[in-house]
């Protein structure tokens, strides 16, 4: 019963927060809503005994990704509300479609399925090892290839982000390490014959 109460409470908050994300006019509010949604999600995941992921979600998402979002919002200074023309024209269709998709999925889960209703919630506590350890073990044995690929994806993200945003500003004095290393005395010092009487 307690679980149900927790679930429904957090579920409601999650839904409200999600709605907040899409409905707030100020992007900062939206971002904060999203943070709320992430935290709530983390709570719900704890219910499902995915402790590690719940923590990762909060740490990585809230702590890193959402901060990035907020940082960008602040940096670009885009908190004001923009035009909303045409909202009414397309919104009903979009909302209708959203409802249709939700209805389709819910119908799938509740009406048709034997598969989804047949499963019972079983506590993980019967297992002797904790979630994080299990995940770690799996990750570095069975899923090593995926792990490597994920590494490459992160590398890719770094490269793309840098190549898109790194700017070498003109008229700004800064150190260029490679130039310094490559410096050669012969190019630096120019021997000049000063003729007498010219100066």
């Amino acid at each position, binding site marked *: 019963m307690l679980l149900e109460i927790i679930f429904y409470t957090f579920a409601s908050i999650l839904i409200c927060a999600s709605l907040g994300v899409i409905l707030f006019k100020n992007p900062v509010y939206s971002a904060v809503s999203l943070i709320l949604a992430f935290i709530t999600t983390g709570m719900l995941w704890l219910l499902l005994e995915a402790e590690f992921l719940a923590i990762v979600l909060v740490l990585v998402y809230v702590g890193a990704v959402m901060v990035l979002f907020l940082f960008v919002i602040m940096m670009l200074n885009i908190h004001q509300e923009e035009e909303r023309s045409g909202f009414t024209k397309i919104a009903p269709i979009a909302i209708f479609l959203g409802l249709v998709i939700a209805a389709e999925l819910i119908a799938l889960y509740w009406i048709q399925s034997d598969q989804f209703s047949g499963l019972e919630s079983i506590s993980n506590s019967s297992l002797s090892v904790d979630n994080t350890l299990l995940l770690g073990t799996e990750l570095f044995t*069975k899923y090593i290839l995926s792990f490597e690929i994920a590494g490459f994806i992160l590398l890719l993200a770094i490269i793309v982000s840098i190549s898109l945003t790194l700017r070498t500003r003109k008229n700004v004095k800064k150190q260029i390490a*490679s130039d310094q290393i490559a410096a050669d005395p012969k190019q630096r010092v120019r021997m000049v014959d000063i003729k007498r009487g010219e100066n």
Partner: protein
Amino acid sequence: MTFNIIGSILPEVTIAIAICIVILVNSLVRNASVTLIHSLVLFFLSFALFLSFVSLELPDSNIFEGHYVIDAFGTNLKIIALIAAIFVHLTSIKSKQNIKNEIFLIQLFATLGVMILCSAHNLLTVYLGLETLTLSMYGIVASNRNSIEATESAMKFFILGAIASAIFLYGVSILYGVTGTLSLDLIENSKLLDSLEMRIAVAFMACGIIFKFGAFPFHSWVPDSYQGSNTTAAIYISSVPKIGAFALIARLFLDSLNAISDFWSILILSAGLLSIIIGNMIALVQVNLRRMLAYSAIGHIGFVLLSFSIVNPNGVSASMTYLIMYLIMTIAVFALIESIASEDHQHIELGDLKGLSKSHPLIAFMLLFCMFSMVGIPPFIGFYAKWIVLSELVNNDMIWFALIGVTMSVIAAYYYLRVVWFMYFENNDQDIENKGVINTQSITSIMISAMLLLIGLYPSPVIDYTRRIISSFLLID
């Protein structure tokens, strides 16, 4: 054991190493020249290609706990992808340009992603391969970062791509829920294959895959990103990723979900058919050359999907034949456009082609080949591509689809011919002088265009090749 595993994935490893080396070179070598980066990339791509050929000899094997599979199908697709990538790189060689070196690096990532997709045999690996590809494609499209068009198109592509991958993942999650496994082998054996849940999952995944192909109604990113990005980027995203998408659909749908092929084939079929219609229709009214080619690509992909939806080995091999021939054509066309586009004038409108036959006679002539090939006029390969697809359609009692296909080809002919018309029938008011500068890039583009005719005169090898690959693929599993 370990060595065997590494040995099997040597091509991928080569690309990975190449990525690292290029990163190092690019950041450590002072003012690393484009030529150097190019040579490195080319060397590694060729080496990977060589290794792929070598690994054709390897016996089929499942490695990494079945997450990765080495078989003839995957290796052959890798070979095709690598060849395409090499050609794309070759056509990007330009003496003077402001393209940043990073684009070649990111292209390497994308190629790696495609290669992973070719061999991935687990939904997680598939997902990661797909994301490697997708994320690099965002980077490629955005690589011309100082251009409004490029960043805008990248932004759109990014948003749509994110939606698509979320939709795909949603499908994967349901699939996982239904079958309890992520392994493609095990999915095949699931007892619930024929359930509604499964179909819903497949429908979700189909959306993701169709998005990768760039077919209607998940095509919206194609025109914008073809037009917005620079030509080098457009060549890449119009060619190599399609192979990844093909690998994906083949492994996931054709192989693992073959049991419900009568279901997903209809989704693919409708997407294909609508792509042919919508793509060609909208292409009719385009003035920007790359945008027009984008819509034409949608139309071509429609044929690929239409033929794929036949599901049987003949149909799929026709689909693959079409894909290969499409790749050749599209690389050729973009390469030619690239070689006439000046740096400050990347966005070529049809009107800019006026008098091309006089200023660049050879390029114009080859572009003429390409256009007729795209129309589907023999003896160019475009014709064989269409013909083989039509043959399979007729053979499988889908004659109405064949008729729609040919009718749309006729409509398509109009806008392809418009290119020829502008090049040959209109005169440029300004300068009519022969600017036929022959550089490496032109030579490459001309070489590729000449392939249109040469393969067209004797298309048997390609036809037999795809047929062999597909039948081996479908028989093994």
